[in-house]
């Protein structure tokens, strides 16, 4: 993979020699353009510096705009100025060296003692030298007086009240020998301190400071160009004044002004220097500002890149579009384009597009672009031929990619077919929310339009929603019906759901069936019959429904099997649902037997079709049957109440016994735990037992209303069908909360030897240990409220901490694995072919196509075989 390796990066400073060598032209004129709008010769926009106007050629390299990278020029400064970024470095050098002989102010013997320490990372040699030399009054070598130099930041140097001019600084720096510079960490081959005082200023190519022509025709220059103009102006005035023999005072003023302009050219936020302003009063964005900070080149443009051909908007649900489709707002569709090649075959279609004004550009084989307008439409149509390329607006059926952040998943980006719609939001079928983890409370998502045939084909064949129903992680469906989808299917397939001819026709028509099947309930049609129309004709399945399993748990002696009392065993024969209800065990994530069968053993259109159609029916059923929730359904019945009281009483007696055993230390100890721990575990179990007794009773009461002739559709239907909520939730509302738990045990921390001050000290009984007898319907008493808050607090902390921690953990893991590839010899390797696993997964199984991690479900295959 890697053909070249970077062994190191070296940073150094350009000296005047380098700058002159790199320069293609000396910039002398402060004017940018002449009267006719042409760049001035020797001006800042000279064509030697590169070209940014299409069609023109660079005067240096002769190349066109796209090829020419731009070239540097230079300005000869008539008086040197200090580079503001190096003032501090010059100061240290001036502290440590002699102005006359240029040597460090330490005798040779003592200096050489320091030499071995230069490359020691733990010792700062510069500091050591400064400590010895800063206070010296005399050079120990040549005897020249040495005064402390003061730096008036960023660029002015003083000795007492006397100014040290840049010319003097430069002369001083030149005297410092290379061998002495090594003590300060300079590599004298790369850097000389006199280069910190500029005599030549580099002029960047115009490519990095392009001028903009406004709509009004006025040219607006880049901030850097403005600054360079200032520098050249002052430089020229300085030259004129020096040549005219002007008084020293005037020259010094101009010199300082030149220093100011050069300083702000590099960094317009230098401390102690007022920032240079634009005419409008806006501070100029000079070199340092371009690179630095959040909006700088590094963080904004290099680490954070943006793409073209993308759109972002809020998502809203639309049940009437396919799971493969994406509702694209007209505004977006009219802005984004798709390139398309002209052939003799599609000539007619494309000509129609152009006539309809759906094509933005026509591109000839030689790359010439032509924008299509009302006026040149006819003309363009004439000259069209195969081999041309057009860029047309997005239309129905185009393949687009759709994505939601955070992209934790392969399935966070899927391909859809575009469907242009009025409005401003992206529309998706709510069934595809799952893989994106999206909802409609204001989520925004991104759309991308592939621009090449390869890209389109890849998206279509690999990334379409219908081809990604099964999770590549465990081979079970991830695109699933949930919430109302499951509830609706449950209601539809209940024994008691029967439709009259008219209603049945409505449903059947909505799923595209025009021939009415024979009624199966006298004159009426059962929900099962309508559901059966969605199944392929060769489908055979038999399994327990979720309802059946729930009944098994609640009603003692009941077994869910073919031909039982409540008809809860799902039997599908030749694509017909004969018995059973369709609930979570048919449709749910990972467990859904029906959907995983459809997704695995049929072409992808089958499952997509199933989802599209059932979505429509289910929506109507949930509306019409009126799934609703009322307070009265959570009222606790007399029986349940008495069961609760009895259960609590029974368990409290057990608790007393446990307590006595605990005090006498005769309590049975759970292996691996202390006596105290064993007691706590037993008390927790006790609380759970009370709750489960009440829970069973509540469920028993609720389920009766479902299996009967006229079922009521309230919250229990959600619990029973498995679409939302659990029996525990129901118990919390209308039964009792049970034991409050903190870290899998009874809450312990609180007051000294008791949880809350209402308890007696050392009381570790049921009620003092955080047991909550009340439910949310009745409300908790104040003590229980505090117990509940203890458990609730842990929940809050957990959601905060664990999402953060596990999110980061997952990110690290995913990043470390993302470049690994399974090769044709089944080895898993990094891009540079290093082996990670000698056999992928050690068993060569791709879990996405597996049956629960195994290559095949032997039992099922055998059954199929026997059946034939």
């Amino acid at each position, binding site marked *: 993979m890697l053909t070249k390796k970077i062994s190191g990066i070296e940073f150094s400073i350009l000296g005047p020699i380098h700058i002159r060598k790199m320069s293609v032209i000396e910039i002398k004129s402060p004017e940018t353009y002449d009267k006719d709008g042409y760049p001035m010769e020797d001006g800042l926009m000279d064509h030697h510096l590169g070209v940014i106007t299409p069609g023109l050629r660079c005067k240096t390299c002769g190349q066109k705009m796209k090829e020419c990278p731009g070239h540097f020029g230079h300005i000869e400064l008539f008086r040197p100025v200090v580079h503001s970024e190096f003032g501090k470095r010059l100061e240290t050098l001036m502290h440590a060296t002699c102005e006359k002989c240029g040597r460090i102010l330490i005798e040779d013997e003592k200096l050489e003692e320091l030499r071995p320490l230069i490359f020691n990372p733990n010792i700062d040699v510069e500091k050591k030298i400064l400590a010895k030399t800063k206070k010296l009054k005399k050079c120990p070598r040549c005897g020249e007086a040495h005064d402390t130099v003061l730096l008036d930041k960023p660029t002015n140097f003083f000795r007492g009240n006397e100014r040290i001019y840049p010319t003097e600084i430069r002369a001083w720096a030149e005297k410092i020998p290379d061998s002495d510079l090594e003590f300060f960490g300079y590599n004298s081959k790369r850097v000389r301190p006199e280069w910190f005082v500029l005599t030549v200023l580099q002029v960047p190519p115009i490519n990095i400071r392009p001028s903009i022509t406004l709509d009004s025709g006025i040219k607006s220059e880049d901030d850097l160009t403005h600054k360079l103009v200032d520098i050249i102006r002052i430089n020229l005035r300085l030259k004129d004044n020096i040549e005219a023999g002007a008084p020293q005072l005037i020259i010094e003023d101009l010199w300082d002004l030149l220093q100011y302009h050069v300083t702000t050219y590099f960094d317009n936020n230098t401390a102690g220097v007022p920032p240079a302003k634009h005419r409008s009063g806006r501070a100029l964005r000079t070199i340092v500002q371009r690179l630095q900070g959040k909006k700088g080149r590094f963080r904004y443009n290099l680490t954070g890149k943006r793409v073209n051909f993308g759109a972002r908007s809020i998502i809203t649900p639309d049940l009437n579009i396919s799971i493969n489709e994406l509702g694209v707002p007209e505004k977006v569709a009219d802005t984004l384009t798709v390139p398309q090649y002209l052939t003799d075959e599609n000539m007619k279609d494309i000509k129609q597009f152009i006539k309809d004004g759906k094509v933005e550009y026509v591109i000839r084989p030689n790359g010439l672009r032509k924008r299509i307008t009302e006026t040149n439409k006819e003309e363009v149509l004439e000259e069209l031929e195969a081999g041309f390329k057009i860029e047309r607006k997005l239309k129905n059926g185009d393949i687009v990619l759709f994505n939601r952040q955070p992209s934790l998943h392969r399935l966070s980006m899927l391909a859809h077919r575009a469907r242009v719609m009025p409005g401003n939001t992206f529309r998706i079928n709510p069934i595809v929310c799952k893989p994106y983890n999206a909802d409609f409370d204001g989520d925004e998502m991104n759309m991308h339009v592939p621009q090449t045939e390869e890209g389109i084909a890849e998206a279509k064949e690999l990334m379409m929603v219908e081809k990604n129903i099964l999770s590549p992680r465990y081979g079970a469906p991830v695109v699933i019906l949930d919430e109302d989808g499951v509830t609706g299917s449950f209601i539809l397939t209940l024994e008691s759901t029967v439709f009259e001819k008219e209603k049945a026709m409505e449903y059947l028509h909505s799923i595209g069936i025009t021939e009415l099947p024979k009624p199966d309930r006298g004159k009426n049609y059962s929900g099962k019959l309508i559901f059966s129309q969605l199944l392929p004709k060769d489908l055979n399945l038999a399994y327990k429904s979720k309802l059946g399993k729930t009944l098994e748990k609640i009603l003692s002696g009941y077994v869910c099997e073919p031909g039982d009392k409540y008809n809860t065993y799902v039997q599908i024969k030749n694509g017909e649902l004969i018995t059973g209800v369709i609930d979570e065990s048919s449709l749910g994530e990972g467990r859904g037997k029906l959907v995983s069968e459809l997704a695995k053993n049929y072409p992808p259109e089958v499952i997509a079709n199933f989802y599209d159609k059932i979505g429509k029916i289910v929506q109507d059923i949930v509306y019409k049957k009126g799934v609703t929730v009322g307070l009265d359904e959570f009222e606790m019945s007399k029986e349940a109440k008495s069961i609760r009281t009895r259960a609590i009483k029974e368990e409290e007696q057990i608790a007393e016994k446990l307590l006595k055993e605990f005090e006498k230390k005769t309590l049975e100890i759970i292996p691996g735990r202390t006596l105290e721990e064993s007691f706590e575990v037993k008390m927790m179990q006790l609380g759970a037992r009370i709750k489960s007794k009440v829970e069973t009773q509540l469920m028993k009461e609720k389920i009766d209303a479902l299996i009967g002739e006229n079922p009521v559709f309230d919250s229990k239907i959600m619990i029973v069908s498995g679409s939302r909520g659990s029996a525990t939730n129901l118990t919390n509302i209308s039964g009792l909360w049970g034991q409050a738990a903190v870290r899998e045990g009874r809450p312990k921390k609180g007051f000294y030897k008791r949880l809350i001050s209402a308890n007696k000290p050392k009381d570790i009984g049921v009620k003092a240990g955080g047991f909550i007898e009340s439910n949310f319907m009745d409300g908790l008493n104040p003590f229980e409220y505090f117990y509940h808050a203890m458990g609730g607090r842990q929940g809050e902390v957990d959601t905060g901490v664990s999402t953060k921690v596990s999110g980061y953990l997952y990110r690290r893991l995913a990043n470390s694995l993302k470049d690994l590839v399974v090769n044709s010899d089944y080895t898993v390797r990094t891009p540079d*072919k*290093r082996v990670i696993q*000698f056999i992928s997964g*050690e*068993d060569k199984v791709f879990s996405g196509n597996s049956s629960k991690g195994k290559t095949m479900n032997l039992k099922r295959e055998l059954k199929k075989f026997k059946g034939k």
Partner: protein
Amino acid sequence: MVLKKVADHYLVPKHEIVSKERVPELLEKLGKSIDVLPKISAEDPAVIEIGAESGDILKISRKSPTAGETYYFRIVF
């Protein structure tokens, strides 16, 4: 209980040196250079125990939850 050898511990998979004759055959399969192989330290207790030297290739037989037993090859460095 003190184990006499690291290999006696139930969590330590079996390490063995791949014979010199078999090395070219192995590399042929995995792609020319030995750089593609994962490494194992010459100071690894299991490596010291079987007397492998730097440059040897080890075959490690691990128990695998998916495949029963699986082989890994590592180069001693």
